[in-house]
């Protein structure tokens, strides 16, 4: 019987070795070790053995069983590995072939730039105010301390609807509305479309976009204005950006200023992009004129504040190096899909 078992072991091993695949191995397992398998059958025959022989043969039988199992497992592992290797090999693809595209929409670059600006100011505690594109002469000019015979009021500069209504030439009327409709502290930015009577060319568009900011509270200073805009410039154009504040004139602010940033192309050395000066003008700003505060129902002896404004089209064009403003409004999807 012992011999029989040993023969069986040899027999099983040789069959296992020759098994072509996992399925065949499983068949072998059943053939030898299954309920009706050969080893099991032998074990069933043990009842015919003597009491002395029984434990001895039992031990051998179990060893044979274990050997077959172990051998089977090893070969199975091998086979499995080979089979997976073969599968991987056969399934190899050319990963440099084109991808399957999912359609993705693209924001207009002007709004992408606007979002970036909004995010900066939201982070500094500003809210976003909006206002109508068709405005009253009062909100667009009168309330903003614009002299009555200021050239910007003329038909050659401003689009009119009636004597009292116009297309806003700036987003400042939103500031006026905000000041009139709420009380300090006020901290807003006001983005929007603006209109001026300019013929369309590479640098002019009768419709363009501005973003203005307004802060009104007690104890607001020019230093606050500088600090706010310096952070803005660094966040928009990069942390290495330097700002230069120089005096300027606007009817609705005093003191007024313009802000230049160090050229983000050459870093301030002077290049073609910045006209050799190393600086690029990006916005106008100033302390809100007491006349404007008064007109909007805010006591300039108690409160003061600052305001600033920038051309979003210009900023977008600078940021993406777009050289013709008309590109922004043509809406060629091949253009928009770049952003």
């Amino acid at each position: 019987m012992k011999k029989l078992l040993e023969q069986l072991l040899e027999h099983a091993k040789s069959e296992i070795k020759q098994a072509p695949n996992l399925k065949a191995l499983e068949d072998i397992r059943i053939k030898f070790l299954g309920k009706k398998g050969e080893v099991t059958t032998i074990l069933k025959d043990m009842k015919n053995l003597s009491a002395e022989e029984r434990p001895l043969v039992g031990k051998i039988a179990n060893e044979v069983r274990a050997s077959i199992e172990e051998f089977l497992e090893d070969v199975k592992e091998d086979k499995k590995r080979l089979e997976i290797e073969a599968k991987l090999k056969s399934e190899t693809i050319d990963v440099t072939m084109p991808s399957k595209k999912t359609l993705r929409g693209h924001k207009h670059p002007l709004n992408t730039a606007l979002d970036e600006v909004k995010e900066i100011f939201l982070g500094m505690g500003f809210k976003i105010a909006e206002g109508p594109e068709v405005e009253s002469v009062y909100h667009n000019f009168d309330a903003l301390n614009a002299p009555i015979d200021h050239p910007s009021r003329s038909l050659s500069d401003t689009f009119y609807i009636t004597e009292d209504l116009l297309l806003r030439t700036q987003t400042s009327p939103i500031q006026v509305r905000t000041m009139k409709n709420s009380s300090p502290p006020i901290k807003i930015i006001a983005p929007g479309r603006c209109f001026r009577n300019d013929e369309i060319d590479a640098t002019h568009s009768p419709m363009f976009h501005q973003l203005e900011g307004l802060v009104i509270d007690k104890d607001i200073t020019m230093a606050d204005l500088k600090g706010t805009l310096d952070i803005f410039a660094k966040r928009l154009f990069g942390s290495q950006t330097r700002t230069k504040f120089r005096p300027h004139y606007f009817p609705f602010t005093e003191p007024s200023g313009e802000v230049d940033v160090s050229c983000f192309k050459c870093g301030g050395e002077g290049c073609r992009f910045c006209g050799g000066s190393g600086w690029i003008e990006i916005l106008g700003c100033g302390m809100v004129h007491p006349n404007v505060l008064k007109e909007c129902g805010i006591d300039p002896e108690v409160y003061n504040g600052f305001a600033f404004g920038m051309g979003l089209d210009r900023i977008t064009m600078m940021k993406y190096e777009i050289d013709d403003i008309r590109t922004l409004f043509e809406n060629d999807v091949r253009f928009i899909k770049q952003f």
Partner: protein
Amino acid sequence: MRVPVKWLKEYVNIEGILEKELVEKLVLTGSNNEGSYEIGEGVDKVVVGKITKIIQHPNADKLFVCTIDVGEEILQIVTGATNIREQDYIPVAVHGATIAGGIKIKKGKLRGEVSNGMLCSLEEMGFDKACIPKEFDDGIFILDKAYPLGMDILEALDIKDTVIEFEITPNRSDCLSMIGMARETAASFERALTLPMGKINTQVDDINDYASVTIEAPDLCPRYVAKVVKEIKIEKSPVWLQMRLMNAGMRPINNIVDITNYVMLEYGQPIHAFDLDTVTDHKIIVRRAENGEKFTTLDDKVRALTGEMLVIADAKRTVGIAGVMGGENTEISKTTQNILIEVASFDKSSIRKTSKDLGLRTEASSRFEKGVSTGLPMIVVNRVCELIETLGAGTVIDGVIDVHPDPAEPVLIPYRVEKISKVIGETLTLDEIKNYLELLDIQTIEKEGQYFAVAPYYRLDLQKEIDLVEEVARIFGYDKIGMTLPKTDTWGARTNAQLIEEQAKLELLSSGIDEILTYSFVSKKDLDKINLSANSMLRQQVELINPLGEEYSVMRTSLIPNVLDVLARNNNRKVKQARIFEMGSVFLPKEVPVVNLPIEKKMLTIGMYGESEDFFTLKGACENILNGLGICDYYFEKEENHPTFHTGRCANIIWGTHIVGTLGELHPHVQENYDLQVRGYVADLDFNLMIQLAKADQKFTPIPKYPAIERDIAILVKDEITALQIEQIVLSNGGDLLESAKMFDMYKGKQIPPGYKSVAYELVFRAEDRTLVDEDVNSIFAHILKALENELEAQLR
């Protein structure tokens, strides 16, 4: 404002200051730089020469052969110039020279004659053609006197200079002058200022025997100052004066005109000189013009005047349009013997209006309309006479006429040290503030503990304390002000509506739709192009008085035309597929004609074309957006009457009693109107309404614990039965266990009788508390089928 640096040095000591520093500092104190250039830059080896002989060129009628003495050698040069004579001193570009425009001059032969250089015009020396004296317009520049032969011409005439261009802000008209810029320079660098004395050494006779002045319109002419000069000798100005004018961009004419222009550039005050002998009775009257009066100005044009315009008249007639242009009838000529110099102040609004109405803008009018101080005329008239005397151009008559009915007191501006410090954000002391102001010639006086700044006569912009804050800030230096952040009790956030807008855009982008931006103003004809009827409400539009053209003449009442324009443009450019949206306002008048602000309503319009697009891709995009905003309980309803759309492929999105929007395939006419080569799809959504319907308070639904049973049902129904009808019946008969019903197939054609279609739905049944068995579903399924049979005459397939 062009500032030649050498000229600036006459008034302010800028010794040791580099031009670069000068510019940088002035920029920081408020005069922005607009560029600068060098006079004579690039001109090299042009020297003083003397023509010793001119002979006709033997082989060319129009050429001459000149013998030129340039000191170290004698050159033969061939020229075509006709304005030269022997003994003239002229600029000579010798062999190897460079003239304006980078042109190199070399030895050569002209028609067989050796030519060792070139005689130069002013243009060739780099001067702007518009500033060159008429006599040298087309010829060689003849020097006014002898200069050392062979000397570099730029050195000989001392014309090398840097001209800096500054941007002058509208509040600082006083800086549109050399002295104004000198004052800014002096204040910026704390340097000494030296102004002309206006000192006349010899004066004779009495002006009252020569002329009289009456102001009949003091509201438009607050001051009129006049002086008379006799024994006038009209001639060319000396070269230094001519050069100064040319460098500042003005053309030299003759000594008297040049002096008035020179002093105007110095002080910013326009000056006019009359030929006194042509002024009837030597009487000057400042009055309003007669309505309809015709008047010939210096430029030889007849102007029609109105009663609003201010003129200068003599005893009989008009002799000048005040502050704009003088008259031909009293113009200075070569034979003029006596002149009256007018230095007056005119009302700026009146000048602006007159200049605009006449379409005549002059150097004088543009200065007057920006504002010229009434403190200037006396100083200026004396300066003019000083120069006339210095140049020997005439004899100054003693006395001055100064009609100044209501001289203004100096403006006193109260200020507070704390307020100035507080606005700037730097702690400044009284002494510091006083100092900064004094640098600008603004004195401080104290009265009863209150400080007052005395505005200099020429600073018309200084009126209030805040104006002084600006003066202090800019002289202190904007660059020296610290940087802090406002200590404001506010927090930043988007409004609900803004968040919804962001969310909607996110949904649009993730549906593969690109954002566009188009003009708010459009053509009236746009509404024809989208087939709208003549009585459509959208035809009531907000119209511009002064549009750029018809195509930008009305405010849009629909975004559809804008979106279609963009689709068509892309299609024209052979872009195969486009999915675009615009979110923007339409403008709906509250009344016609427009009186009040129109209603601005935000719309969201989507457009698509391309191989993979159809009604249902657009519908899917709309669903994504609505669902993304938490808007539910809407449905799509067939719309057959919208003129823009295909009658069989258009739907309204309904929510309650509202129409959220309309979507569909374009009507073939519309497609044709836009020259769109493929079918286009448009959805037009009322975004204001969507903001109202959007729900932010979405609640979680538990993930099902028990498996579902899925059953398909295919039925045959009449063609006109809609998916919506079937779905409603299925859902309303499905009871609690029916989780969803999705149509997955619709088939017409083979094996289906004409007029019928086969539709197939997948029904999903599920219970919350147990695993369903077939028996649970069988009866419900039968019930649904029965309802379909009864209500829609459906047959099970």
